């Protein structure tokens, strides 16, 4: 039953490396999207204004007269009703019987200098009911970056644990051979590289599986949460492969040397 125990232990750890690696790649991808695309979305300040219906024309003229405004877009009450119904399908049955008069006219304004524009806007209170200065989702960014760091640490920890057990297993299996080599004064590289290649191949397969898992997760995520996601870039998974290989090499060589030194002569 020891072989079953060993399989469960090794397979369990390998599955954990795949899962945690997959989560890490996935959160890395989400973070990349937030950092790149959302930052691009907020390259200029954005302000949403709820316009009083009777002053829509005057408000348009006001926007045309402001030099800070680079672009603006109006959305009618009916359009807002449809947007809300499509954003929240659970609310559509509630929103449908409401007349369009209940839905305000909104304007999305892109400005170069939000402070200057807001100063001018506040002096024209007769045009609008309320406004909102859009801000990037900092909380989400913090949460995702925190998750990415946690997954990275966990992945490194489990990878290290897995490699440690692999080295222990090799040492236990080949202790005599290692002892003889040590006694003969032969270089440890003779036994290191074959073992290292083997672990590198294993880790490569594990990384491929982790990337595939992350890719599948990203596809599912895109279908559920349609937020204009970019497909997972080659750079993300190639960097993950490189990181995985380098880490495997570093950890395995460290554990191997440490264990090799502890092998008794004879």
């Amino acid at each position, binding site marked *: 039953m020891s072989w079953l125990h060993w399989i469960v232990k090794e397979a369990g750890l390998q599955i954990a490396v795949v899962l945690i690696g997959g989560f890490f790649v996935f959160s890395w991808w989400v973070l990349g999207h937030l950092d790149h695309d959302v930052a691009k979305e907020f390259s200029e300040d954005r302000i*949403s204004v709820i316009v009083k219906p009777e002053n829509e024309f005057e408000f348009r003229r006001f926007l045309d007269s402001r030099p800070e405004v680079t672009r603006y877009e109006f959305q009618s009450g009916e359009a807002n009703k449809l947007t809300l119904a499509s*954003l*929240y399908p659970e609310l559509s049955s*509630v929103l449908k019987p*409401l007349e369009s008069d*209940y839905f*305000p006219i909104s304007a999305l304004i892109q400005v170069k200098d939000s402070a200057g524009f807001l100063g001018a806007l506040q002096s024209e209170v007769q045009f609008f009911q*309320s406004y909102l200065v859009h801000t990037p989702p900092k909380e989400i960014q913090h949460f995702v970056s925190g998750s990415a760091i946690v997954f990275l640490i966990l992945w490194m920890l489990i990878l290290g644990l897995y490699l440690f057990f692999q080295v222990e297993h090799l040492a236990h299996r080949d202790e005599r051979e290692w002892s003889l080599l040590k006694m003969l004064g032969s270089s440890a590289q003779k036994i290191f590289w074959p073992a290292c290649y083997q672990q590198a191949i294993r880790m490569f397969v594990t990384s491929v599986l982790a990337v595939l898992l992350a890719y599948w997760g990203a596809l599912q995520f895109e279908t559920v949460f349609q937020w*204009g996601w970019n497909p997972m870039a080659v750079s993300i998974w190639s960097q993950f492969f490189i990181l995985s290989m380098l880490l495997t090499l570093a950890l395995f060589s460290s554990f191997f040397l440490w264990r090799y030194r502890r092998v008794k002569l004879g």
Partner: protein
Amino acid sequence: MKFFFLLTATLTISTFTSTILAKPSKAVRIERQVKSLKEEIADLNLSIESLESLSQRLKNESEAEEENFKSRLSGLVVHLIQWPEKRWGLTASSWTELQRAHLVLENVRQSLVKSPLKMISDRELRLNEIEGLSLELQAQRKDLESKHSSLDVQLKELRRLNAKSKKPPQATIEKKKKLEVVE
């Protein structure tokens, strides 16, 4: 002497004739005024009645409207108010769209919450306007009624005077006839 007597008689007759001619024209004028006042009062009464019926209709309509609003929207309002303030819209294409949707939803909620209050204040305003108008018309009616009663008194007085003034010429005629008989 005869000439003097005739002159006096002529003067008296002319004075009475002018009085008789003058008095009825004023009386007619007052009668006309009274008539027109009566018409005005009748019109005002009609206006007041129509205003009262309008006010009643408005009340009924408002009640029906409020009842309709209550039955149609109370469930929706409760549902919308209970809806979490910052719900994650899974189909949003961008963060801005999501934030904008939150802002719009907040405004929809506010307008829904305010609409019954607005409805009540509108009803109060309209009813107050009608009541004010009705009170104004009633005051106008009172004014016209007092005018009417004063003119009525004047008319009665004039009629009495007319009746009195009509008698002396008949006496003079009789006196004249007696004089002629004496002559």
